[in-house]
């Protein structure tokens, strides 16, 4: 079952602009994670935000979490052509031993 839903499905921006992707989920969570995927193969973990956190930064990445709205956003500042990839959010449940469930992803294209 799909827990997270990313929005938009696809995003195209110019190099140097900021990119914002959103994720909505359905059930209570312990944490929410963002991943990046190049070329349809393995995913790489970007950032994890816990349910008691509202904002987190890592380099050019900024993640927010609003548990009341069951939503999160990923902001990539000063985008580069190398940021072109698909970005996925993933959530766990809050009942302990639950798997990570991924959304459908946002395909980001950064044009040089």
């Amino acid at each position, binding site marked *: *079952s*799909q827990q997270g839903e990313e929005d938009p499905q696809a995003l195209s921006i110019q190099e140097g602009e900021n990119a914002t992707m959103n994720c909505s989920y359905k059930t209570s969570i*312990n*944490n929410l*994670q963002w*991943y990046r995927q190049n070329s*349809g*193969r*393995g*995913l*790489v*973990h970007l950032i*994890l935000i816990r349910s008691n956190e509202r904002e987190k930064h890592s380099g050019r990445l900024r993640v927010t979490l609003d548990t009341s709205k069951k939503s999160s956003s990923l902001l990539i500042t000063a985008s580069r052509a190398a940021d072109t990839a698909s970005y*996925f959010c*993933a*959530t*766990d*449940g809050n009942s302990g*031993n*639950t*798997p*990570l*469930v*991924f*959304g*459908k*992803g946002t395909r980001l294209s950064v044009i040089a």
Partner: protein
Amino acid sequence: GAGVSQSPSNKVTEKGKDVELRCDPISGHTALYWYRQSLGQGLEFLIYFQGNSAPDKSGLPSDRFSAERTGGSVSTLTIQRTQQEDSAVYLCASSSTGGRTEAFFGQGTRLTVV
């Protein structure tokens, strides 16, 4: 090993044949996941192993799909009587404590059923 290893990288099989896909997780990781990804789509959860607990098989699409994890380490995903709709990339991931920590992914096995 240093990362999650999957084999084979690519597999072409004839419709109706059985296939086995292998995943070697990071040593010491108790959680192991299998996902399926069709072209341009998101990750479809298949099965989740966590330590000695019974696996969560809720994502397996049919009884043609099964998975084992021997000795809490290597896992094998088996697809019996493959169909063309089984064609996809099969991704394996492991993590130290399940959904509360980051997952490390292998590079996947691209399965093509002809």
